[in-house]
């Protein structure tokens, strides 16, 4: 044990280990997205998720059905209005999604323009608007409440419970993966000789944890007398904001039929 009394003087190479940093950043962003469920209580974030979910779905369906330029323009204006109501950081995320969607759909549909497809531009716009609309809904909503909103269309309890648990597992496992990676980062002085085998070990650890967690959750359900009853209430009151949101969306639906 004499080595414990002396100072080490090891030599080591330092290499770029951006894979740890990148994975850590991705996990952090995922964790913060889920954590944000607790801190959103103003503006569009406060809006009842059932309203957001169903009006977004209707809007996307109407967009896919319509080939009227005026209706698509009207929807574009609506999307811009929604974007104005978002936080700066979120706007930046939406902008990235918007540009990616434009780029990918132009790459796929764009060439058909040269072969006489007059609707190519409209289709690209429709795809982009649909992607941005769903993105806005996803970013501004508590995912658990979105799942609860599906209860209104009589999705079975057990399906919703599985979705709800999936979000919880994603959060807890991401947190665990983050902690393991941080520990790997601080212990791997120098460089990791085989990063991919280390990552596969981490994945194995997470897989084993998932199995263990699911068994223990089953035990916990058992202890709490689970018989299939699961509460799917959304603890938000329907107020002026929901009223305004409904009026705007009902107007859009009305205009869809008028402009046909």
């Amino acid at each position, binding site marked *: 044990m004499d080595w414990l009394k002396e100072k080490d003087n090891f030599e080591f190479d330092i290499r770029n280990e951006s894979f740890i940093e990148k994975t850590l950043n991705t996990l952090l962003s995922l964790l913060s997205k889920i954590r944000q469920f607790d801190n959103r209580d103003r503006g569009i974030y406060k809006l009842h998720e059932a309203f957001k979910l169903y009006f977004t779905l209707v809007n996307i369906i109407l967009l896919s059905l319509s080939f009227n330029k005026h209706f698509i323009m009207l929807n574009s204006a609506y999307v811009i209005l929604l974007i104005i109501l978002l936080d700066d950081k979120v706007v930046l995320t939406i902008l990235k999604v918007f540009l990616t969607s434009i780029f990918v759909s132009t790459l796929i549909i764009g060439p058909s323009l040269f072969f006489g497809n007059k609707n190519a531009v409209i289709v690209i716009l429709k795809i982009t608007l649909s992607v941005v609309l769903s993105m806005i809904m996803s970013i501004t909503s508590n995912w658990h409440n979105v799942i609860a909103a599906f209860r209104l269309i009589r999705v079975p309890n057990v399906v919703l419970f599985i979705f709800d648990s999936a979000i919880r597992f994603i959060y807890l496992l991401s947190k665990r993966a983050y902690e393991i990676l941080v520990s790997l980062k601080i212990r791997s002085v120098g460089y990791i000789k085989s990063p991919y085998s280390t990552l596969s070990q981490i994945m194995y650890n997470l897989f084993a944890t998932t199995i263990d967690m699911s068994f223990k959750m089953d*035990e916990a359900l058992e202890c709490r007398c689970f018989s299939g009853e699961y509460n799917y209430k959304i603890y938000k009151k329907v107020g002026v904001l929901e009223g305004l949101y409904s009026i705007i969306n009902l107007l859009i639906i009305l205009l869809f039929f008028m402009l046909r």
Partner: protein
Amino acid sequence: MIELKNITCRLNQNLALDNISLTIMPGESIAIIGPNGSGKTTLLKVLNGLINISSGEYIFDGQKIDSKFLEDSRQRKIFHKRIGFVFQNSDNQLFCKTVFDEIAFGLLQFNIEYKEVEKRVNDCLKLLEIEHIKNRVPYTLSGGEKKKVAIAATLALNPEVLVLDEPLNEIDPKSKRKLKELLFTLNQYGKTIICATHDYDYFDGLFKRAIEISSEHRIIYDGDFDKWHPHHI
């Protein structure tokens, strides 16, 4: 009320409990003590009917608890209503989308009026001093807060026997004192308290009986808590 007769338990072929026999009467407060890996958690899980025993007999209030008994979902529900379990790792115990739902979960499995459910949930929130987090997502809470929510969720079912596995983990000193007071009050109300812990100093005055399990998975002390000496472990 609880009787374990010559219980032996193996987990993945490894011996976890070796020939354990004990009797627990209603209203007792018992500390389960032992080194890591001695089988404390396994014993608590056996008491809650969560683990199949390899040999021996478990009798709860005159009823033999075996796989046949636990196959009947109605009987199983009644049994779990009577004996509540607070897990060592709260992450495994919390699965609802808000703290309020978490505490109400067990009650909603029974035909209880929602008003009564709300009343009990609010009382539990108050008892554990977690009213301010009632609308938060449980799995994003701190370790100590999760533990309190897990205790409140178990307490809401008003079990006759409260089994706790390392309840003081991650809890701050002030909350530890509060939890001790709470357990003391519950014991005075006639609840049986069975608690696996390493922090027995914090529970000074609460436990009347100590059961020590050795690293060989056998009971090496079962008697007065005050007469039990830490040198056993």
